[in-house]
C-alpha cells in the first residue's frame, strides 16, 4: 500500500492537464450525447409551444420557429378545452394549489409529530404500527382504492377537496414519518434528556426544541411532498371530483379531447405550464431535491 500511496500523485489521472486525450474526449462525447437525449424533449416542447399551427403542420419538430407567437400559451392557460368546458388549464392550476397547500401542511406536520414521538417516546404498539406503515409504502394504490372510495362515500366526503387532502396525507405518511424519525434519531439524545429534566412536556419539547431544530428536514419534506402531490394523477382522478380535478388530470383531458384539430402548440404550452411548479422546485432547490431522494434510497 505504501508503494501505491507515494507515487499515487503521478499515476492517478490529472484531468485538467489530460483534457485532450482520446479517452477524455470519449467521456465528454458520451456525457454531452446523454445530455442532449435528456434535453431534446424539453427543447422540442419549448419551440413547439411558440410556433403557429401552420408551421407545425408543414415543418420539422426540431426546427426553430420562423414566426414566434405566445398565443398558444394564452390559449393553454385560459381557453383550451377539456371536453365541453373551455376555460384552459388555469382551472387545474388553481385546483392543484387548493389541493397542495392543505395536503402539505397536514402531511408534513403529522410526519414530524409522528417522527418525534417515535424517536423519543415509548408508546405501546408504536413499533408495530410503524412497521406496517413502512410496508404500506410499497403497496400499489389500486389495492386500497375501492375500500377508500366506499369509506369516504359513507361519510359523504367522496370527491371533495377534504377527500383528496386526506388521501394525500394517508399515502404520504410512510415517507414523511420515516424522514422525520430518522432525522430526530440523529440528533444528540442529551438535548432531549436536558429538556426532560427541565420539566418540558411532550408538546413543549416538540414546539420549542424540536421544531426549530428540524428546519432542514422540513425543507426536504416540503420538496418531496410538493413534487409528489403536484405530479399525482391517479389519486386526483378518483378522489378530487370533477370540479376539483388537479392540473395533471386537466392536462390529460386537454391532450386527449377529441374535438376538432389537435392544437399541438397549445398542448405543449399546457404541458410546460403543468410542469412549471416541479421544474422550478427542482432547479431552485437542486441539492435539497437530491437529498430528498437520497434520504434513504442510498444507504450502505
Amino acid at each position, binding site marked *: 500500500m505504501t508503494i501505491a500511496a507515494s507515487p499515487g500523485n503521478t499515476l492517478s489521472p490529472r484531468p485538467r492537464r489530460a483534457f485532450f486525450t482520446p479517452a477524455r474526449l470519449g467521456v465528454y462525447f458520451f456525457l454531452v450525447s446523454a445530455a442532449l437525449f435528456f434535453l431534446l*424533449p424539453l427543447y422540442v416542447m419549448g419551440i413547439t409551444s411558440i410556433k403557429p399551427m401552420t408551421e407545425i403542420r408543414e415543418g420539422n419538430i426540431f426546427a426553430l420557429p420562423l414566426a414566434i407567437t405566445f398565443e398558444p400559451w394564452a390559449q393553454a392557460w385560459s381557453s383550451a378545452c377539456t371536453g365541453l368546458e373551455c376555460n384552459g388549464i388555469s382551472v387545474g392550476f388553481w385546483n392543484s394549489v387548493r389541493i397542495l397547500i392543505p395536503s402539505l401542511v397536514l402531511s408534513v406536520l403529522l410526519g414530524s409529530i409522528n417522527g418525534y414521538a417515535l424517536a423519543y417516546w415509548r408508546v405501546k404498539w408504536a413499533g408495530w404500527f410503524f412497521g406496517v406503515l413502512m410496508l404500506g409504502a410499497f403497496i*400499489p394504490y389500486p389495492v386500497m382504492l*375501492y375500500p377508500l372510495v366506499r369509506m369516504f362515500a359513507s361519510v359523504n366526503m367522496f370527491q371533495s377537496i377534504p377527500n383528496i387532502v386526506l388521501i394525500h396525507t394517508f399515502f404520504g405518511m410512510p415517507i414523511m414519518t420515516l424522514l422525520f424519525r430518522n432525522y430526530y434519531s440523529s440528533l444528540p439524545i442529551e438535548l432531549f434528556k436536558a429538556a426532560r429534566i427541565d420539566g418540558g412536556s411532550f408538546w413543549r419539547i416538540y414546539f420549542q426544541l424540536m421544531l426549530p431544530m428540524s428546519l432542514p428536514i422540513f425543507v426536504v419534506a416540503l420538496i418531496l411532498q410538493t413534487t409528489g402531490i403536484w405530479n*399525482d394523477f*391517479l389519486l386526483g382522478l378518483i378522489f378530487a371530483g370533477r370540479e376539483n380535478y388537479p392540473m395533471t388530470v386537466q392536462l390529460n383531458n386537454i391532450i386527449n379531447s377529441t374535438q376538432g384539430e389537435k392544437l399541438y402548440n397549445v398542448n405543449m404550452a399546457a404541458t410546460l405550464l403543468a410542469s412549471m411548479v416541479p421544474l422550478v422546485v427542482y432547479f431552485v432547490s437542486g441539492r435539497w431535491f437530491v437529498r430528498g431522494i437520497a434520504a434513504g434510497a442510498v444507504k450502505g
Partner: protein
Amino acid sequence: MRTGPSAVLGRSEAADAPPRGAASASKRGGPKTAWAAHTALLPMGATVLIAYVASILWTLRISLSNSKMLPRNDWAGVAQYVNLFESDRWLTALANIGLFGLVFIAGAVVLGFLLAVFIDQKVRLEGVFRTIYLYSFSISFVACGVIWQWMFNPTLGIQRSLRSWGWESARFDWIATQDMAIYCVVIAVLWHSAGLVMAILLAGLRGIDDELWKAARIEGVPRWRYYLNIVLPQLGPSLGTAVVLLAVSVVKLFDAVVAMTNGGPGDATDVPTKFIIDNLFERQNIGLASAASVTMLVTVVIIVAPMVYARSRANAAAGRA
C-alpha cells in the same frame, strides 16, 4: 412518481429499533406526558388501521366474492382469480408489463450506471450534467407521456424530421404499431427515471475508496475492467435498491400509458393498473378488479421481500459486529 419507497428501503431497519429517549421518558414521564405521546400518534394509528390494513383486508374479501357493481357478502372461492387468468385482456396486460419491465429495468440500470461512471471521471461541469440528467425525474408521468407522444407522432414527429433531412423512406411510427408501441413507453419512462438510477449509483460510487483504483492501476488493470470487475460488485447494495425501486414503479405504471397511448393501439400498451381502474370505475366489475389488485400486491411482496430480508440480515450482522 412518489419517492416513498425509496427512503423506506434504505432505512427499514429503523423500524425495529426502540426509541432512544424511551428509557428516560418512561422513568420520568408522568401519566400526563405519556398520554400526550399516545394522543399525538392517534392519526398514525388510525391511518394504519383504516387506510392500510382495513382497506387491504376489504379488497381481499371482495376478491373472494361474486361482487359485480357493489360488494356482496357471498363466497365465491377463487372464482374471480380463475376468471382473471382466463381474461385475455389481463393476460395481455401482464405480458406487456413483463416485457416493459425487463427492457426498462435493464435499460435504466445500464444507462444509469454509464452516466454515473462517466460523471465520476472528475469531469468539468459535473453539477450541470447531474442537473440535466435528473430534471426529467421531477416532472409528472402525464407530462412525460404527452411530450413523448408528440415526439413519436407518426405524421408530424421525428419521422417527418428524418424525411425532411433527406431520408425519404424513413419510418418511425412505432407508437402506432402493435409490436413497437410498448417500446415507445419504455423510452419515455427511461427518459423520466434513468436519472434516479444515476443519482443512486453515483452516491454508491463516491463511497468507494480511491486507493482501490490506484492499486488496480499499478497492477495494470484497464479502467473498464476496474469498473466491471471491482466497482460493480461493490455497488451491489445500491444496485439492489435501484432495481427494487424501478420494479415497484413498473408494477404501478399507469399515468404515462394513459397520457401517451391510453393502452393502444388495440391493447398493445395495456397495463395491470389500467385493467384494474377500468374494471373498478367503468366496467363495474369490482370482484375481478379486486382479484387483480391482490395479484398485484402479491407480485410486489415477491419483489420487495428478498430485499427487505437481505437488508435485515445485513443490519443484524452489522449490529453484532
